[in-house]
């Protein structure tokens, strides 16, 4: 990864503060280095083996400016990213919605600059530092006060696999103003023979203002040799709601980390996720919910299905500050292991500094039920389909967390089939 730290010329380098921001990212990434098994936050998901590859960071080096042919089976305002480059955005945006390439917003929208790095702490998260060092692409999404977005915004991030290992670096800033309502979908996919590895490194900084709500859906379906590291940092103001659902089924090494700060009274968060993989993949779901004020609530349901020699990781933290009385924080992780070599590592943490709170966490691990499997097969259903039916049934309750019906059926379909449940 060291070659990444060489000083590349990037858009906006003529702005001293932006140049310095990138330099700070390089310094921080060099200082922290790639996490190893000794790094507590990364002890189950060891990225050093994967990241021993020298990934090339060469934005726009390939000059691939073709909008990828990715069809989402639901109506959306679409933003296209191809190999880490922001290509286009549908131009029929309703009033109250502003979308700009991030660097453009940083250069021309006063105030956006203050949002950069305000939530994602590059001194604590090495890949946020890497993201800062390579800050060049991303979107600035602004939903103005009172706007109720009817169609979701879809950020389609597609990779056409090339014959060298490349880094694709994206940084999105999302602002949902007072009493606005929006849905954002992130899709990560690829085409081409997955010959070489690539690494997608994403940082999202999301603010949900008082009384506003954001539903954030993500589907990670990267190539099986790819790496996918995402840090979602979210701050929710009084009475605001952040609700996310993430399905991960691709990549060799993937981590979706979500840090939510419930900063004011009655702010709420729901962070749900599902993952399903085989082979040798490691898929990590890490959450950190911080309750700062009274009346804040959070809930998390994470369910995984792990086969082959793959590994599922869940680290979930709920922190309740001394002022945060009358809060509720719930967390449940359940996994199904499909093989003897599959592995699950779970680390729940509750830090409660206030009285009068309701908190719980739980973890469970199981297998496909042999009786259920036999029952389905004895009715003529082939083994592989019977297993898929049981897996789908197992994930049914977490799928039900997806409020948008069209997005829910898309995610269910993407999970592998049109089978029942």
């Amino acid at each position, binding site marked *: 990864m060291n070659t990444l730290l060489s000083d590349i010329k990037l858009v906006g380098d003529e702005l001293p503060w932006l140049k310095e921001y990138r330099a700070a990212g390089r310094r921080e990434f060099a200082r922290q280095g790639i996490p190893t098994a000794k790094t507590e936050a990364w002890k189950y998901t060891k990225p050093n083996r994967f990241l021993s590859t020298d990934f090339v960071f060469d934005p726009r080096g390939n000059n691939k400016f073709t909008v990828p042919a990715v069809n989402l089976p639901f109506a959306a305002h679409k933003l296209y990213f191809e190999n880490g480059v922001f290509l286009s955005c549908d131009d029929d945006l309703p009033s109250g919605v502003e979308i700009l390439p991030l660097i453009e917003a940083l250069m021309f929208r006063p105030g956006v600059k203050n949002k950069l790095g305000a939530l994602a702490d590059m001194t604590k998260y090495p890949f946020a530092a890497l993201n800062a060092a390579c800050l060049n692409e991303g979107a600035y999404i602004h939903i103005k006060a009172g706007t109720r977005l009817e169609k979701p915004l879809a950020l389609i991030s597609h990779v056409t696999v090339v014959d060298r290992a490349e880094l694709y670096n994206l940084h999105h800033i999302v602002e949902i103003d007072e009493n606005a309502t929006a849905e954002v979908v992130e899709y990560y996919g690829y085409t081409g023979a997955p010959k070489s590895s690539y690494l997608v490194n994403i940082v999202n900084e999301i603010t949900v203002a008082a009384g506003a709500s954001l539903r954030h859906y993500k589907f990670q379906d990267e190539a099986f040799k790819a790496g996918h590291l995402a840090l979602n940092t979210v701050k929710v103001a009084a009475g605001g709601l952040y609700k996310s659902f993430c399905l991960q089924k691709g990549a060799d090494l993937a981590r979706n980390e979500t840090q939510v700060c419930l900063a004011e009274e009655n702010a709420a968060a729901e962070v749900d996720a599902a993952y399903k993989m085989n082979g040798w993949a490691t898929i990590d779901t890490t959450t950190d919910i911080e309750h700062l004020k009274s009346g804040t609530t959070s809930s998390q349901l994470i369910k995984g299905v792990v086969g082959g020699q793959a590994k599922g990781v869940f680290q979930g933290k709920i922190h309740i500050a001394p002022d945060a009385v009358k809060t509720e924080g719930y967390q449940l992780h359940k996994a199904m292991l499909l093989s003897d070599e599959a592995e699950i590592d779970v680390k729940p943490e509750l830090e409660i500094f206030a009285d009068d709170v309701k908190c719980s966490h739980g973890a469970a691990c199981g297998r496909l039920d042999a009786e259920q499997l036999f029952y*389905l*097969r*004895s*009715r*003529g*259903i082939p083994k592989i*389909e019977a297993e898929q*039916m049981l897996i789908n049934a197992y994930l049914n309750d977490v799928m039900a967390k997806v409020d948008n019906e069209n997005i829910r059926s898309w995610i269910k379909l993407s999970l592998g089939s049109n089978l029942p*449940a």
Partner: protein
Amino acid sequence: MTIPLLEIEDLSAGVDGKEIIKDFNLTINSGEVHALMGPNGAGKSTLSNILCGKQGYHVTSGRIWFKGKDLLKLSPEERACEGIFLAMQSPVEIPGVPITAFLKHSVNAIRKYRGEPELDTMEFIKMVREEGKKFNLDAEMIKRAVNVGFSGGEKKRLEALQMAVLKPDFAILDEADSGLDIDALKIVADGVNALRDGKRSMLIITHFQRLLEHVVPDFVHIYADGRIIKTGGRELAAELEQTGYAGFMKENR
């Protein structure tokens, strides 16, 4: 000469290294209804599970021919597609899998195996609802997940409904009458009788005569200690009811 539908030859089999079925022989021709009666723990369910290919059982010797095919070489789903159906003694609950979707998948898997086109969804649901009425299972129940929250009797009726929908060539009813009150027994028996068409064969496994009063078998086999110890007509069931297994076995050893 037509081949028998099912031929079990000198079958010895067991579970966990323990031999339960010993040199078992049985031949069932098309259209015949056989009853296999035996005391609890004699290995009746072991036999039905082996016929359907459930894992965990081992066959130490013998062969099973179904429509002239070596049954033991087929997977459970292939056996179902060849026309074997097992109405289970204790059907498992499958949360999250709705009955209609499951049954549609099942019917279409079997049709696909046989090279037949898949059924239209609307027609299928209509058909299942019609059949459901016969087994006193209404549309609301059929929407539910497989066996979830069903009483013992409801589970048995759902097994009978599946049999009616899948129309197997050979149905095994494993203790289909246990846990049924007299009305439910009548419903299940009517459903079974409706499927007797002179071509379809059945093996009714039971330890009471109760069901056999409603579904009259062509042959009755008394099964004990891993093998059939006596075969007779329908009157054998009544005789057994009089003497009880213990008395019967004393006489027939």
